[in-house]
């Protein structure tokens, strides 16, 4: 396995980990932030796959604005979640 492939697998595994954490953690603020991390990992993966425009957009939208929207909402409703 070349270094790039290893990097690829590394990101893929962490993507799944981030997704699971974002969904399992009880604090919605943490969930939102982890979701931002998930998006950022996704953006790295896409950049590595050669989809630079998509990666750029995901960095701006997924990791940036989406996370901000989520956090804004979490602040205005309650922070803890039952699951």
């Amino acid at each position, binding site marked *: 396995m070349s270094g790039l492939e290893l990097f690829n697998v590394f990101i893929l595994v962490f993507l799944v980990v981030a997704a699971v954490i*974002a969904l399992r953690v009880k604090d919605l603020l943490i*969930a*939102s932030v982890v979701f931002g991390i998930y998006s950022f990992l996704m953006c790295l993966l896409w950049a590595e796959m050669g*989809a630079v425009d*998509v990666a750029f957009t995901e960095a701006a*939208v*997924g990791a940036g604005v989406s996370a901000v929207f989520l956090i804004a909402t979490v602040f205005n409703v309650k922070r803890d979640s039952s*699951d």
Partner: protein
Amino acid sequence: MFGEDGGLLRELLVERFNYCIYVVLLLIGLYAMIAKNNLIKKLIGMSIFQTAIILFYVSLGVKEGASIPIYKPEHDPHGHHAEDHADHKPKDANASSSASADAHDDHHEVQALTDEQTRQYANPLPHVLMLTAIVVGVATLGVALAVVQRIYRAYGTIEEDEVMKAIMEESQGIPSTKGSPKSKKGASKKRKAKKA
């Protein structure tokens, strides 16, 4: 789940690891959308679900040994032809629409790429589609978050079962509970009816 065949398992896990991960992410998202009780958790699941599909599309555009879909300088219409362009520019700017045919001829030195050169670039179409999909995703997320806030404003909770309970109470409570704040909606309805 992967089938008994060891070959199939190996094929799926080693050669198609990317495809596998997109399936896993998609399923995580789908599970969260259906099973989670918290509305915001459902939405995070929804976003994961959508990004998984985007990951699938981007995987389609990958080509072995290809670079990003932006012309290298040697293929770039504005790359090594840039000097020629600089010469033509003033002419272009002054040319009327009839002269633009000449300009068109000048540009003919911009040649289409050969098949060999085409292979050097990744397929741009999936990328374009996914730009659109990302945008749609954030728009849906935004609208859904607004809906969540609206629900919270009305029912004071973002847990699905509690919202359901509040709705049940409300729909049963309209006729009997006149003074309680819960029947506000019912009261306003009645007022409207009287007017009409």
